[in-house]
């Protein structure tokens, strides 16, 4: 497998499609891995389950994480990612429709790098995702 740039953890197919569309538009969709639940996300990151054999060193440059996920919830995924030395250094952007203060607080408490609320308005949505892609993939510096 090639290097992964974005791990998109999103259970809604429509949201996923819209997000990918935008990324594609911006030529950022080349190396996007899309998983549909928290378990799969962790399997991928820790190269287990369906992803056994993956090169674990090939970490994504950013994880876009939805909170409302079946099986393992987004906050638990976040917790796991930030708890493990292997995955801690990967920037996590929570991309969720929840504006709830409690979710924001919880996320930052777990060490989230950014918290973005998905606008309903597509134009804004497009804008947000573009910015995210630009920022985290092109602007943000990661350790080699």
């Amino acid at each position, binding site marked *: 497998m090639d290097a992964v740039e974005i791990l998109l953890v999103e259970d809604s197919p429509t*949201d996923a499609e*819209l997000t990918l569309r935008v990324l594609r538009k911006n030529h950022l969709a080349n190396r996007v891995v899309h998983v549909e639940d928290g378990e799969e996300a962790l399997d991928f990151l820790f190269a287990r389950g369906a992803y056994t054999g993956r090169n674990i060193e090939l970490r994504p440059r950013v994880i876009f994480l939805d909170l409302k996920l079946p099986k393992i919830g987004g906050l638990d995924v976040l917790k796991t990612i930030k708890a493990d030395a292997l995955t801690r250094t990967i920037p996590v952007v929570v991309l969720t*429709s929840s504006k709830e203060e409690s979710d924001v607080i919880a996320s930052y408490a777990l060490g989230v790098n950014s918290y973005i609320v998905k*606008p309903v308005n*597509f134009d804004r949505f497009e804008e947000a995702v573009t910015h995210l892609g630009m920022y985290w993939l092109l602007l943000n510096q990661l350790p080699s």
Partner: protein
Amino acid sequence: MADQENHISEILDHLLEGCQIIGYDWQYLYLNDAACAHAHLSREELIGHKMMEVYPGIEITDMFQQLNKCMEQRQPVRFSNDFSYPDLTSGSFEISVIPVKEGILVTTLDQSMERERSIAENESGMAGNPLAESENRFRTLIDQAPIAIAVSRESKFMYVNPAYLAMHGLSNLAEIMGRPIYERVSAQSLEESKERAYRRLHGQFVKETYEYTGLRVNGSEFDALASVTRVNLVDGLATIGFFQDISELKHAQQEIRASEARYRNLFDNMLEGVALCQMVYEDGRPVDFIYLHINEAFSRLTGLRNVEGKKVSDIIPGVNETNPELFEIYGRVTLTGNREKFETYLPALKIWLIVSVYSPETGKFVTVFENSTARRQAENALKQSNEELEQRVRERTAELSDLYNNAPCGYHSLDAKGVFVRINDTELNWLGYTRDEIVGKKKFTDLVTAESLLTFEENFPGFIKRGWVNNLEFRVVCKDGSILPVLLSGTAVKDSEGNYLYSRSTMIDNTEQKRGETARQETQKRLEAANVELEAFTYSVSHNLRAPLRAIDGFSRILSQEYAGDLDSEANRLLTVIEANTRRMDQLITDLLNLSRISRAGLHFSDIDMTSLATSVFTEISTPEIRQEFSVQIDPLPAANSDLNLIRQVWSNLLSNAIKYTRPKAERLIEVGGYLEKDSLIYYVKDSGVGFNPAYTNKLFGVFERLHKAEEFEGTGVGLAIVRRIINRLGGLTWAEGKLDQGATFYFSLPVKNNK
């Protein structure tokens, strides 16, 4: 010189006349032989002694007065004097007194010898006359008699004896001889004396004895007793009288009479009855007595009159049977002479008597008694009244005791150490103890939980000092171990110095309250749980509603973006409509979420600087362009005490409305102000915007109500509903004024004092 003195002395000693010098202090300084002879004393007995020493009583004699006259006035005096010696002899002298430098010089010439000589001459003339001898003897008797004797003829003094002279203050016979006898009688006795004299003269009487008032030469009067009789003297009839000064006697008699009168007065007027009685014996036993003498009170107290001289058995029949003790006691007293006192009831007279009895002489006794019937009755009445009173007190105490003991709450009293000194039945029942187990044995703190012990220790000292405590919550442990929640209130009883004595405490069963509290707490918890649930529900609803909305909007946008070329204008318009509506729905969801959150949010009150709040909110919701376009005036607003976040929302909604509805106008004015009116703080946002039809004012604050078309003004119609709901929760009111196209003013009020 000594020779000359001796020579003079010799001459003086040979003189017939007595010569004596008496000092100013009446000491005999010198006497010649004749003076000693006249004095019937030796020189040693006289020289150096005072005259009053030698002749006691001499100061009262006339002779002394004469000597004193010379001694004091320093004038020569000459007089005759009949002198009676202590040895009962007498002498008659002619006395001259002259003042000398040592005192007085007295010369005495003995005239008795003269008199004796003349008498002897007379006697020698009638020598051998036995009658004359007899008369002489009588004369001597009379002269020496201790009683005053006067002889008179035709009411004139013929002769008086020295005793008579002395009684009347006369010095010698010459002063009275031949004088009328009435001169020696006082004015008040004069008339009577004259009558007697007349009777004596013309009547046939031999002697009489009578009292009269005598008159001394110095004018003083005295009571006298006269015994007078006619006598046949040698030379004719005369009256001889024997007189006695009975002043003292009369005085004594008066005293006795006065004393008797006093006792009589007492006897007659005293309130107690007195009876002097004679005991009557039969076979040596006292069986009766005779009333000898009774006083007025006796009759008044007993109702018996005319009892003197009568036997009691006659006056009070049957008294022997009804009151045998009387005879017993009187008999004993009469016999022993001891005093006794007793109380008895006489059925015959229906009276109670308190009697004191003593015996003044053998066989007699005196009773002094008072009628104690009235007193006994009064005593009985008092006793009865006391009993009634005590009965009432008992009843009242029982009443109060009942009220205390059976009150619907617990009463108890604690001393300064917190020990029970008193407790009512109700409290005992609640606690399940007996009174013996509690009073004086247990402290209040022995019966409470550990937690309540702290409450007690914290509050008791303050209670003692302050004197009261109200509604303290305690949890009391009953005898069976169950816990009773109670409310305790109390006041402190203190002594006059302010020292704590004991408490008056009420204990109220707080079980219901506590249960209610628990119920309320549970209800509260349930409400909170429900709220949390609702919150979660709302959250999930909004999230779930939003996701599809996002898809609708997204995909239609993609469609219009990427397939615009393939679509005609109508198709594009349709897509626009779809997009617009999804956005609207999103807004609706947001607004609904807000609205529901308003109702559920907890309120946190704090002081709010409304002026700076309104200003900062305006800055937040507006852009620099808007701020340029608008003329905004925010007046100094009164501070409020309310929930900061909710008020912020209110300002946000009102101000954004103002901006929104004024933007289309040429004149863009927004005015924000506030003032205090009675108990409310009124705030307003006034704009120069499009206003509204006042006919629809009541719809303004309704949910989703709009008075303008959606295409004119965006908005879901929830903004004002939110404002109203917030303000209502905070205890205020909302209202608005406006005219079409002439702007609108939106008001909200807040209470000055926040009350939840």
